[in-house]
């Protein structure tokens, strides 16, 4: 149940990204850990015994084309290392990474550069803009090193500038822009080459909460319009839930749970995950099917009908207005009913009630 998306043993060549048994060990004898009994030690034991840090341990996952895959975890859990291993900004210690079926770890330096120039792009927590270049030349940088002529690359840069809402800032220097605007430049730069996959490493963590919300909306809009495959790193579960199709939760270098936002809230694999999800308003994540229950005595089936895949928050106005049991139907199948009381109970945090019902009905 917790393992919503089981990972097959073999890499999936159809996936946009397919990662298998990926390890990154930092330290003096890094290559003497994987495949030995040392690999079974916890991170702390390993550090004490060998002085090595296992930043990423045995991570496997697939990202479907067009999916937004979120990696989330506390600081130090290995997220940045993981995402850098995917493009070999950090050289992995063991494992395999397939991008559109091609084994990245076997790519020659020049092939790797080519992939970075045309297929991948990355957005950084601290923006990583080139301070000595104007916005437009920052955005055009990857085209420039790819040999695109000045006129063509500026034309493309201007397109992307419009796309991310930077109109009129092309001639500014990064230090003249606010943090939010700088990250828009970071986004534009990542989009300029029209990459297949975007990697975003905590892109909004350095921004104020209000601006962060704008930027999250911006990324979701871009994703809707452009349909890029994204690997999105964050330490903020609310953000993960907002942008992610699927979320992998990391702890001490390993993935502890992977699934849709709803899975994680409804069925946290362990206390670590439950700790994260505790503060997430359930009504924002769970769908009606999670709280639908059998008709009770004295209730009528004459209320309106709602789809079981609807998020509870979105369904709430209808339910409140109906003032009686609402029918929940999914794929032509009757799942049960939901009343305003059920919604209130969920919102007030009566968790047991929900999980109890979840156990009874199932999705």
């Amino acid at each position, binding site marked *: 149940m917790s393992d919503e998306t089981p990972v097959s043993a073999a890499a999936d060549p159809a996936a946009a990204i397919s990662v298998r048994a990926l390890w990154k060990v930092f330290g003096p004898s890094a290559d003497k850990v994987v495949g030995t009994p040392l690999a079974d030690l916890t991170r702390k034991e390993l550090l004490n015994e060998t002085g090595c840090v296992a930043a990423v341990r045995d991570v496997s996952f697939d990202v479907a084309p067009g999916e937004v895959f979120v990696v989330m975890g506390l600081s130090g859990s290995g997220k940045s290392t993981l995402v850098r291993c995917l*493009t070999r*900004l950090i050289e992995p210690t063991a494992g395999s990474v397939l991008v559109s079926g091609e084994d990245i770890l076997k790519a020659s330096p020049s092939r*790797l*550069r*080519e*992939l*970075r*120039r045309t297929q*991948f*792009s*990355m957005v*950084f927590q*601290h*923006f*990583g*803009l*080139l*301070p*000595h*270049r104007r916005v437009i030349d920052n955005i055009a*940088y*990857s085209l*420039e*090193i*790819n040999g695109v002529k000045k006129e063509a690359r500026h034309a493309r840069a201007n397109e992307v500038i419009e796309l991310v809402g930077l109109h009129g800032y092309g*001639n500014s*220097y990064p*230090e*003249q822009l606010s943090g939010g605007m700088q990250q828009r430049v970071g986004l534009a*730069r990542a989009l300029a*080459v029209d990459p297949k996959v975007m990697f975003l490493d905590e892109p909004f963590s350095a921004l104020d909460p209000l601006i962060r919300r704008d930027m999250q909306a911006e990324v979701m809009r871009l994703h809707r319009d452009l349909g890029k495959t994204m690997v999105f790193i964050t330490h903020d579960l609310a953000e993960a839930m907002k942008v992610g199709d699927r979320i992998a939760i990391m702890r001490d270098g390993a993935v502890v749970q992977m699934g849709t936002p709803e899975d994680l809230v409804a069925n946290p694999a362990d206390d670590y995950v439950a700790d994260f999800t505790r503060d997430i308003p359930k009504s924002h994540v769970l769908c009606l099917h999670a709280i639908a229950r059998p008709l009770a005595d004295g209730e009528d089936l004459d209320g309106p009908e709602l789809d079981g895949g609807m998020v509870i928050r979105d369904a709430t106005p209808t339910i409140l207005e109906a003032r009686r049991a609402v029918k929940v139907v999914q794929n032509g199948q009757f799942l049960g009913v939901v009343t305003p009381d059920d919604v209130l109970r969920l919102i007030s945090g009566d968790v047991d009630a929900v999980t109890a019902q979840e156990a009874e009905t199932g999705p």
Partner: protein
Amino acid sequence: MTRVRELLRHKWILVLLLVVVWIVLATVLKGVHTLELPTAKNTPVTQWLTDFASSIRGNRTESPAFVYFFNPIRATIAAFIEAIRSVISVPGAGNVIPLIGWLGTLSIIGYIVYVTSNLRTSLLSMGLLLACGVLGMWTFTMDTLAMTMGAVFLSLAIGLPLGIWAGLNDKVMKVFRPGLDLAQILPTLVYLAPLALVFLIGIAAATIATLIYSIPICIRITAHAVRSLRAGPVEAAVSMGSTKMQLLRKVQLPMAKQTIILGVNQTTLAALSFVVIAALIGAPGLGKPVVDALVIRNVGDGVVAGLAVVFLAVMLDRATTAAVIKNNTFVRDTGKARTKRRIGLIVGGVLTIVAVVLSRQVLWAAVFPEQLNFGKQIASVADAVATWFTTTFYFFTTTFNEYFTVTFLNPLEGVLANSPWYVTVIMIALLAAIIGGRGVAILSLVLLTIVVLIGLWNDTMISLAQILLATLLTMIIGIVLGVMAGRSERVEKALKPFLDAGQTLPAFVYLVPVLALFGPTRFAAIVCGVFYAAPVVVRMVADGVRGGPPEMVEAATSAGSTPVQVITKVQLPASKKSLLLGANQGLIFVLAVIVIGGFVGAGGLGYLVIVGQSKPELAGKGLAAGLAIVLLGIVLDRITQASARRSGNPGG
């Protein structure tokens, strides 16, 4: 924590005990085995070195190493510098003026400064150059400028690529590091004799010595500039698929530019200060009148030449610093400001061309006008002021001088130099062991034994006594002023011009006023050392005090501490490491000047270096003295470095 404190107390008690034992031994064994040696006498080692030097001199025209290596280098470098001189300072054959007269040179320099920085700095630079002319030092100034520019050009041509390489590559840095570290502690004086021996006294030897002095500075700062770049933009550029070359050209170098220009500033000032002192091995320029004045103790002329050095140093510093400030932001001018600047550039360019043409056609624009030369008058005023000062402040210049010498310097010299050499060597090694650990102690023992074997033990100890006292004074002044500056912005502002000047002026120019005031004494050398070294110590202490966590001071103040308690119980202990590093820097700076003090009657190793320069039969002794200075410098540096390092992590 308490255990560490106990241990520390322990350590200081040990040091105290050791010093007491030392003094007792030195008093009892006074005058025994001091290895004293008259200046004119050689030891076997110095005799051998003297013979070696004369054999090199004899070999210059025959030995292949000279014919195919050293002599061509000498000729090339000499030709290069002479070419620059022929443009601005030396008339060509059958001519009375150099290629460009003074007005042309002045305008060109003004224009260059305008282009690289701004109008204000450009006017200031021209004013300072004019002032050099008014002092009657135009041609000397141009010679120094030509030498400095040539040396800076070569230093950058060699130092920038090597610095970039060392910045990008850890292995290269590892290879360079020992050399760079050594270069930091070598006093200017020790470069002179060996280079003069190989390349003959003259322009080439002076330039090469300057290069050896300034290139490490250039490499160090450039490597640091590349190394300390923000990681973010570099990683981003890599993630977009940059090649190594693209990364360097489009990202790393542009971002490092600011710091690299700072390196140009430091390289320039280092080159200038060396070119001045290189007058001792035949460099043309302002160093020559300074040396002449020092030799015959002509205060007036010395002051005039020294002032010109100061003006030139300030000009070069301002011009290069303004370029740093101008490059402080990556944002470029737009619109109006750019148009204005373009007009300025065109007007300035035209004016400069006119001035250059004039300076080749009209006499007053070609040769600096005699009517504007007030050198003589300024010299006599300086003489008068110096006489007035020494008579009015007789107490300070003479009484205090004598008191200090009798009460502090002589006893210290007695302990170090006037006792058996083995007592001193062992005591220093024991002190090194307590302060810096076993490794440093062994190093000290070995290096000092080498000094004994060379035969210059007594002179080394005479220098050491002056160095230690000067460092002590420097530290007292440095801590008092540094704490004040660290605690108050007002004091810091008031001190800033002096600190800046201290870091800009060549050590050599301090000799002139100090010699005027205190005469040719050891005390004069000590005062010089203090003047030269205090600014850097003040700065380090102030930074250390300011760098301490402000909450600590706040907590202590709110707990009811008096300001003195805050300073002694919180701020100074918290900045202990920077104090010790300050002591290290102070020592190195003092060492550099004390040996130059051989000129003003301080005796010791510096005097031997200078004597060796002028008397061929003592050439070996001069070389050996240079070596002894190096060995002494390493010992002092290692001991203070180790103590600073140890205070860094009290646990280990």
